């Protein structure tokens, strides 16, 4: 029979909608509104997984995020999700889940042999062994350990789902929709505050879903439903279920994680799987509730043993009894609630209470219902391997160190209640220094550092009355503080049971000669004996205990184990808990999908792609693109089956012989204006700028303050107070910030403004002997002669009606011009040039040919200006003005920079004139010297010189100028090359620079 543990009269599931799912290959049914956990329990299935280290059988311990055992693998292929918490997975038609970390099956797991050998594997055993022989760790032991590592299986395919981000501001963000959260949301919203209320679970209401209480003459759950309906209707409220606030960051930046898709049967394919909310809240109310602590006893990790609060939730919310012969084992009154719910549904529980007595109304109710209660008794050991089937019960002696008698009781589940731990994660993340509260017997928030308030049971206020009052007061006071309004909502009357005092006793002693495993951290297999061992070995700081035993380091981050671990340490060390302290709470509260954090920055959208306005033309003309920072630039224009080398040679050759056109839009362009513009450039660049005539351009080098070359480029004086600066593509953004820094911070007295115009202009370079001829066709109205536009000259004109700027500058070393028009006319300009240049043999050339041209001319670029060289290394000494100061000049006095034997730029030609020298090769004197072989320099850039038809490279070489004419070896051990080379001048082609001036 299916769902034989389903109860008839209780629960908020929709019994009209039956849902089928598969677990470990078998088909089961549940109802809409179930979680995978509640559906499995309804079918009597407790065994869901195996523990990490010893592969001990594990079942459910909780009903929500506190679950540390029940992790399953969902689906398969690209959509698979490892380590899904079964208690938080909503049941959806067709769900497929299976157990993890077991082979061949969860009920017969080979790895369980570890359990029988567990005495050899105590905490930290791996530090003490696997050291011999030396190489075995990596070759033998570690691979074996790795085979056993991990829980679920990662997908190996890209994630087919998409994720979104949302940004919000609000007055009050409330995390948790229990009674205190709802109350504060109502109070704040009614007082006009912009409120966001977040609830992690699918259902709002928190403890009101399970507690028998009344608020203002309504049942708790009904009051909650009405409050939610009211909040939903208010325009100033965003109320979200399936949304967990997982991180409290600086300046009240809260991050929330919303599950939007996986619970829907046939989701619209456009909705994101999950959504990440960045919320800046003026005030944050933390009403995250509390989590029950387990009690520790022998084999307390067996399937069928769970928190009493979870058992109650399974009954009340899901209509599922976790057992038909349950034992309730408690040290406080709240465990009785679970017993009462069992009883009300016709199941007879047994209560074992370690206290000597309790006389609260809750206990009285249990007694009145005829529930069998045994005080001063506790569960000593659980029996049953794959599921608990009986328990050894002990009657405790007066001081609770031993037993008066022991006996066995048969059972099918044990519900434990070790009191409550406030969920203080967010409070602690906010910087709130927690304090240990003796009454609550746990840490609670103390002093807020940010605008944060913790209320309700998260604040140690466990009664409904306190929770409601704190909620209404906080919501009102905070909203008033923010908006000054004064509409107060008063707290309604409420009715609840009374609860007696808890007992702080929580860890059952071992009977004589018994060595039961008593589990503290379920998922990571940390037992009482492990913590004892750590302390015995001197790991006494709680952080050392945590790291040595791995306590609290599992995927549940110790939600159910940390405090028990702390108490154990404090008992053994004879310190009080606050002295032991707690480990750091860090975000996220529960694991968050990496895809959700990343959002839309995936695939091609990982980073923006910058394209020139002429990009489409390049695409249509077989350009092969290369990434240059964020820009895509044509690397070469492929013809037929050309290789990169063939194409770049052809294109470079054509520049040297005819004329070529190159898209240089990506070069940084900065407009510099103001009466002190020339003075400013004079400070920024190393050379002199005051006397640059209008209509002339000049090459400039700028340094960082530490004397290292920062960037280079040409800057043109458009008019008296107006300059046009160009930068390299790579440094464009940094140069602008650099200029702004000096103008605004260092020299605010200079009247200058700078503005990036990179994207305002489309730029092309025309280079080659025919470029002047072509220019005359493009601009028939102006004098393009060597006198009309001399080298480094500048003219404004119009290109068939389009305003254009003409610069006579050259990177290729040929007679060349750069033409800029407004971006929108980029294609017009390009096509016009191609059309008119056809008869002159024009061809486009890409960055590869551009490199060839500049390398053989000895012009430096990014591969030489690598952030480690000074100007003289690049033979740019002449650019350093002796007459004026400039940024970075003072640093050039350093000893290391004055060393005449520093590395210098040179040219390198292979002796055989055939073999290309791989870039990144190093130059050495003796190619067969023993290591370390002294390196004299490196090859920064290589090309096939189209001028001389042989390879040519640039190198930065120690004392380079003195080595011209010498022979060295260029070694690239990575490529197994050893090339004899001759050192030559870096100006390989046209060393006098006649062509650019022709």
């Amino acid at each position, binding site marked *: 029979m299916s769902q034989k543990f389903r109860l008839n009269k209780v629960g908020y599931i929709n019994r009209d909608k039956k849902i089928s799912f598969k677990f470990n290959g078998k088909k089961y049914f549940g109802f809409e509104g179930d979680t995978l956990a509640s559906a499995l329990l309804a079918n009597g299935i407790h065994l869901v997984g195996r523990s990490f280290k010893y592969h001990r059988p594990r079942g459910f311990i909780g009903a929500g995020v506190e679950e540390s055992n029940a992790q399953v693998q969902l689906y398969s292929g690209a959509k698979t999700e490892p380590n899904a918490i079964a208690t938080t997975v909503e049941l959806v038609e067709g769900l497929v889940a299976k157990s993890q970390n077991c082979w061949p099956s969860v009920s017969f797991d080979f790895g369980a042999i570890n359990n029988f050998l567990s005495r050899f594997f105590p905490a930290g055993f791996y530090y003490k062994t696997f050291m011999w022989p030396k190489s075995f760790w990596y070759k033998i032991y570690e691979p074996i350990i790795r085979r056993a590592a991990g829980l679920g299986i990662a997908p190996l395919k890209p994630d087919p789902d998409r994720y979104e981000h949302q940004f919000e501001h609000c007055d009050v963000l409330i995390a948790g929709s229990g009674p205190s959260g709802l109350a504060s949301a109502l109070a704040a919203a009614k007082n006009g505050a912009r409120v966001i209320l977040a609830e992690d679970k699918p259902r709002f209401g928190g403890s009101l879903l399970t507690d028998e209480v009344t608020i203002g003459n309504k049942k708790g759950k009904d009051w909650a439903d009405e409050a939610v309906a009211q909040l939903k209707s208010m325009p100033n409220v965003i109320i979200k279920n399936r949304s967990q606030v997982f991180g409290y960051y600086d300046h009240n930046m809260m991050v929330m994680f919303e599950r939007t898709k996986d619970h829907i049967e046939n989701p619209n394919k456009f909705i994101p799987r999950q959504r990440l909310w960045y919320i800046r809240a003026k005030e944050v109310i933390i009403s995250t509730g509390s989590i029950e602590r387990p009690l520790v006893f022998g084999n307390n990790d067996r399937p069928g043993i769970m928190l009493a609060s979870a058992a109650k939730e399974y009954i009340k919310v899901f209509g599922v009894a976790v057992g038909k012969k349950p034992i309730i084992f408690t040290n406080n009154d709240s465990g009785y609630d679970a017993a009462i719910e069992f009883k009300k549904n016709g199941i007879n529980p047994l209560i074992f209470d370690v206290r000597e007595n309790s006389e609260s109304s809750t206990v009285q109710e249990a007694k009145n219902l005829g529930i069998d209660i045994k005080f001063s008794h506790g569960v000593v050991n659980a029996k049953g391997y794959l599921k608990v089937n009986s328990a050894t019960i002990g009657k405790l002696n007066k001081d609770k160190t031993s037993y008066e008698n022991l006996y066995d009781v048969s059972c099918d589940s044990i519900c434990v209640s070790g009191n409550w731990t406030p969920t203080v994660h967010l409070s602690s993340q906010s910087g709130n220094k927690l304090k240990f509260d003796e009454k609550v017997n746990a840490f609670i928030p103390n002093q807020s550092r940010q605008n944060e308030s913790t209320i309700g049971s998260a604040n140690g206020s466990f009664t409904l009355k306190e929770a409601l009052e704190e909620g209404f007061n906080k919501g009102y006071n905070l909203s008033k503080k923010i908006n000054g309004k004064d509409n107060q909502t008063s707290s309604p009357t409420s009715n609840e049971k009374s609860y007696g005092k808890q007992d702080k006793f929580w860890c059952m002693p071992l009977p004589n000669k018994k060595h039961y495993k008593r589990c503290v951290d379920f998922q990571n297999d940390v037992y009482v004996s492990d913590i004892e061992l750590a302390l015995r070995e001197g790991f006494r700081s709680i952080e050392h205990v945590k790291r040595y035993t791995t306590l609290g380091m599992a995927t549940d981050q110790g939600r159910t184990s940390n405090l028990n671990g702390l108490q154990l340490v404090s008992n053994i060390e004879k310190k009080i808990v606050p002295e032991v302290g707690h480990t750091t709470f860090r975000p996220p509260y529960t694991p968050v999908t990496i895809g959700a954090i990343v959002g839309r920055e995936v695939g091609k959208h990982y980073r923006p792609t910058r394209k020139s306005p002429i990009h489409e033309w390049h695409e249509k003309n077989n350009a092969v693109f290369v990434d240059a920072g964020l820009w895509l630039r044509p690397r070469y224009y492929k013809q037929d089956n050309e290789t990169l080398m063939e194409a770049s040679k052809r294109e470079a050759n054509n520049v040297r012989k005819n004329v070529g056109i190159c898209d240089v839009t990506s070069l940084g362009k900065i407009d510099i204006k103001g009466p002190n513009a020339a003075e400013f450039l004079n400070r920024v660049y190393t050379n002199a700028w005051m006397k640059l005539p209008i209509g002339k351009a000049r090459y400039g080098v700028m340094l960082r303050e530490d004397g290292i070359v920062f960037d280079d480029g040409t800057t043109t004086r458009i008019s008296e107070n107006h300059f046009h600066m160009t930068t390299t593509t790579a440094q464009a953004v940094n140069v602008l910030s650099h200029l702004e820094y000096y103008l605004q911070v260092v020299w605010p007295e200079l009247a200058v403004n700078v503005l990036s115009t990179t994207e305002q202009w489309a730029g092309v370079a025309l280079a080659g002997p025919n470029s002047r001829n072509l220019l005359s066709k493009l601009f028939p109205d102006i004098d393009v002669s060597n006198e009309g536009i001399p080298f480094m000259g500048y003219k404004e004109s119009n290109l068939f009606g389009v305003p254009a700027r003409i610069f006579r500058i050259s990177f290729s070393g040929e007679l060349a011009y750069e033409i800029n028009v407004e971006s929108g006319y980029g294609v017009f300009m390009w096509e016009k040039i191609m059309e008119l240049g056809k008869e002159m043999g024009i061809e486009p050339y890409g960055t590869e040919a551009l490199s060839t041209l500049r390398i053989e001319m000895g012009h430096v670029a990014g591969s030489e200006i690598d952030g480690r060289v000074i100007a003289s290394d690049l033979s740019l000494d002449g650019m350093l003005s002796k007459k004026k100061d400039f940024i970075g000049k003072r640093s050039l006095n350093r000893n290391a920079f004055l060393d005449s034997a520093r590395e210098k730029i040179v040219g390198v030609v292979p002796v055989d004139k055939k073999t290309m020298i791989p870039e990144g090769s190093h130059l050495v004197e003796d190619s067969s010297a023993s290591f370390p072989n002294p390196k004299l320099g490196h090859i920064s850039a290589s090309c096939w010189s189209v001028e001389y038809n042989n390879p040519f490279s640039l190198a930065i070489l120690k004392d380079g100028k003195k080595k011209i004419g010498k022979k060295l070896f260029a070694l690239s051990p*990575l490529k197994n090359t050893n090339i004899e080379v001759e050192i030559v001048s870096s100006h390989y082609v046209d060393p006098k620079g006649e062509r650019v001036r022709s």
Partner: protein
Amino acid sequence: MQKYSIFSLIRNAFSNHQNWDVVWRDPVPKKEYDAIIIGGGGHGLATAYYLAKEHKINNVAILEKGWIGGGNVGRNTTILRSNYMWDANGLFYEHGMKLWENLSQELNYNVMYSPRGIINLAHSDAQLNTYARRGNSMRLNGIDAVMLGREELKKIIPFADFSESARFPIFGALMQPRGGTARHDAVAWGYARQADAMGVDIIQHCEVTGFDVSNGKIQGVQTTRGNIKSKKVGLCVAGSTSLLAEKLNMKLPIEAHVLQACVSEPVKPFLDHVVTFGAGHFYCSQSDKGEMVMGGDLDGYNSYAQRGNLPTLQHVLSEGVAMFPNLSRLKMLRTWGGIMDMSMDGSPVIDKSHIDGLYLNFGWCYGGFKATPVSGWTFAHTIAQDRPHKLNEKFKLNRFNTGHLIDEKGVGTKTWIG
């Protein structure tokens, strides 16, 4: 001292592990020591160990304000490598690699040195060339390095993004096969255990509050547990260096910055190497527990808070997903931050100071973990001999005056750019 081995483990198993000794004692500080090391992190512990072992200076105290191993040695991403371009770095870290290779045996503590290979992905020919410059420099220094092509990478990390939709396609990689990982806590504890056994006093919860200096010579330190004399004091406090230097009226060429790291939930191992993304700063490996260990950029502003903000992690993880798209469906389990002593040229300082007997060790940026053995080894030499070893002679403090900088990345003094 008990020797750790499979045999001692079995023997102790039969007495229910009741007979293990403490790993290190909890001594009361003496009045005077031959040397004091301030800072019980990896470097401090290693320094004390090598002082005792290599230089027979056993009367040593390590003063730690918190618990040992709680700084960056306990909060890093455990990567070991010597894949540096400049000789000063390459030869130094390569000596470190040799120490790593024998460390488990030497310390009789399994530090899980795992030479699984570190792969630096390149996303353009230009980047491959700059990697080649570094790799060739390594090879000529006798350090292992190989170039991998796209097709070879497809076999090693088939789940990386080799598709058409990659924003920055993978062109190839530089790999140091001997690069890898080690278990960070074990390194601290292993050094602590052996140092303790040789007589070093490890004094936790003892904060240095001042220095006693007279006539330009160090005489001792003031601490929260009283004054302690010593003629030799070594400063090994990474992110706290400036704070102690201030007590000596020293300004140093460092800034404190927070670097975040995170791990995913444990999954069955699929990544056997350490891989770095070349079109960003992301790096990733998979621990022996199955967690993906991930890190990247600094948060980017001076910080002494051992925590960071989410946008930095968002940025870093976007790099991760760009590299390995399958990471998207895994879940981020835990995040944390550490304080980096970012030096102005990205390289450390291991040097004497202007005060006789006071020695400095700082500026590790985000690469301090792999240096733990060699930093301790050379610092111990510097302290014991009162002069640097050849391996650390380039890591002088006055290089910031002479210009003999060791800038691997060429980014200059904007430490926050990293």
